[in-house]
């Protein structure tokens, strides 16, 4: 049971737009960043769980839900989709100077925007399906100096305290911290809602604020490609694997595999 809490609780959800995970991705030859032109952009599927969890916390406790996303111009599509699920407002960090930010730069920009929003609770997904680093939530928390409760399989807020179940290799830990805090939700923590027709219409009128690096008080040296603390030295397509042997089962398929495994010294 969630208690009715401070109705002014301000929740910010970090949502990323990513290339469709069905597509074959490649790196741009000019600056070794993801070639976004070559594939469709969609909402990071894992962030849908973060939006849903934020909306449920809002339903239980009151307050507002703001969507925060950093990315190129077309990212507004993803923010709009989140608004049509029911979030109240969007903040879009968009600036050529932010292009090519590494994890540290991304966390820095998101944290600056979160601080400006005076958020009580930040909810993030477990991983972006393109970068696949799973480190941005921890980095945002460190940047803000806030507690971090991640890999959450359940979240509740009561009396200014957030409690989560954190999935571990052997079960889960129960974690507790005072707000403001950063929460990262696990995949499948909930069943994300689909935008309703009414939601889609309402989203068209909801505000999306656009901010650039300067508005966040960030210099070019802190974000983007030039502010990155890592550098791609080289990349290469992995040589295609030599074609393996494929046989059709004639009643001895299992034995054929055993022979292969034995030749490879697995058994």
């Amino acid at each position: 049971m969630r208690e009715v809490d401070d109705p002014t609780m301000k929740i910010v959800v970090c949502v990323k737009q990513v290339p469709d995970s069905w597509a074959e991705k490649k790196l741009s030859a000019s600056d070794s960043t993801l070639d976004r032109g070559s594939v469709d952009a969609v909402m990071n599927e894992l962030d849908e769980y973060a939006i849903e969890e934020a909306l449920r916390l809002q339903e239980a406790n009151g307050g507002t839900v703001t969507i925060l996303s950093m990315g190129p111009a077309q990212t507004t599509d993803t923010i709009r989709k989140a608004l049509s699920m029911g979030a109240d407002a969007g903040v879009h960090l968009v600036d050529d100077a932010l292009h090519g930010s590494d994890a540290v730069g991304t966390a820095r920009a998101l944290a600056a925007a979160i601080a400006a929003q005076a958020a009580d609770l930040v909810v993030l997904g477990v991983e972006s399906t393109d970068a696949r680093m799973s480190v941005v939530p921890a980095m945002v928390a460190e940047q803000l100096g806030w507690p971090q409760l991640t890999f959450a399989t359940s979240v509740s807020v009561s009396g200014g305290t957030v409690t989560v179940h954190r999935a571990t290799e052997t079960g889960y830990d129960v974690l507790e911290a005072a707000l403001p805090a950063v929460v990262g939700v696990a995949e499948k923590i909930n069943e994300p809602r689909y935008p309703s027709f009414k939601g889609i219409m309402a989203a068209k009128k909801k505000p999306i604020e656009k901010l650039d690096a300067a508005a966040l008080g960030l210099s070019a040296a802190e974000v983007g490609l030039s502010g990155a603390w890592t550098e791609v030295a080289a990349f290469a397509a992995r040589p295609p694997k030599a074609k393996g042997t494929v046989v059709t089962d004639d009643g001895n398929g299992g034995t054929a595999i055993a022979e292969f495994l034995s030749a490879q010294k697995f058994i």
Partner: protein
Amino acid sequence: MAEVLVLVEHVDGTVKKVTHELLALAARLGEPAAVLVGSGADAAIPALAEHGAATVYVAAAPELAQYAVTPTVAVLAALVEQRSPAAVLVASTAESKEVAGRLAVRIGSGIITDAVDVAADASATQSVFGGSVMVTSTVTHGTPIITVRPNSVAPVVAPAAGSRVDVTVALSDADRAVRITDRVSQPKGGRPDLAEAGVVVSGGRGVGSADGFTVIEALADSLGAAVGASRAATDAGWYPHEFQVGQTGRTVAPQLYIAAGISGAIQHRAGMQTSKTIVVVNKDPEAPIFEIADFGVVGDLFSVVPQLTAEVTARKG
């Protein structure tokens, strides 16, 4: 020679194999120094020394176990400050990646995650886009922090001193912000951890039911393997979600990956494509998983897999 800090993965002093792999990588860059947070140092030190740790830093204060993630960050940050290591290596486990992420922000260093190789100059190779592209990156600011995937290199027996150095750190209030109020352990079987296992046997939609997974488990047990599953199988509730392999599940790179009744969708391949040897059983000769198979059998898994299990058991005899 500068030290290279390796964060030890352990359960009460039983050191995980990935730590030995990291020590082998650390030796390429400098002098391996293990960092053990928690209890069990007496049990851990001999194993760490055997695999090349010249020094073992031990932070055993019970208070460290009361809070999540940040105490380990504080220990590593203090050691980086004191020892100016050439690099910090941690395993690409969920928790250690977070430790690495917070550490990077705290000490002002670049971070490379999920490396599959690290060279003597601390450049790290990552396998991205489901293994189709290899990227080599370097950290250009601060002390390189690199998280390394399990099974990336072989552990090396290289006996070293393993001298114990106890470290105490003063936790800040911020490091005490997330209290662990309970730990709930769900019993799991005797199979190896999915991410660490040398052999993984996975089942997909072709397995057909939760009961069908007994066929997959039997093969896994005959090989001492971990069991994995495709999202189709976990979504259907046939196998628990934590065993899902792929883009939104676990990434594995075992010596041997056996996929039965799995079509090989791009999101599944993203989590297993870098396995050293891939064996496939699927009744559809057109299934894309055959494209990455070293050895494949077109056939019904319910006849092929039990026959294989029987053969393995007989040959191990």
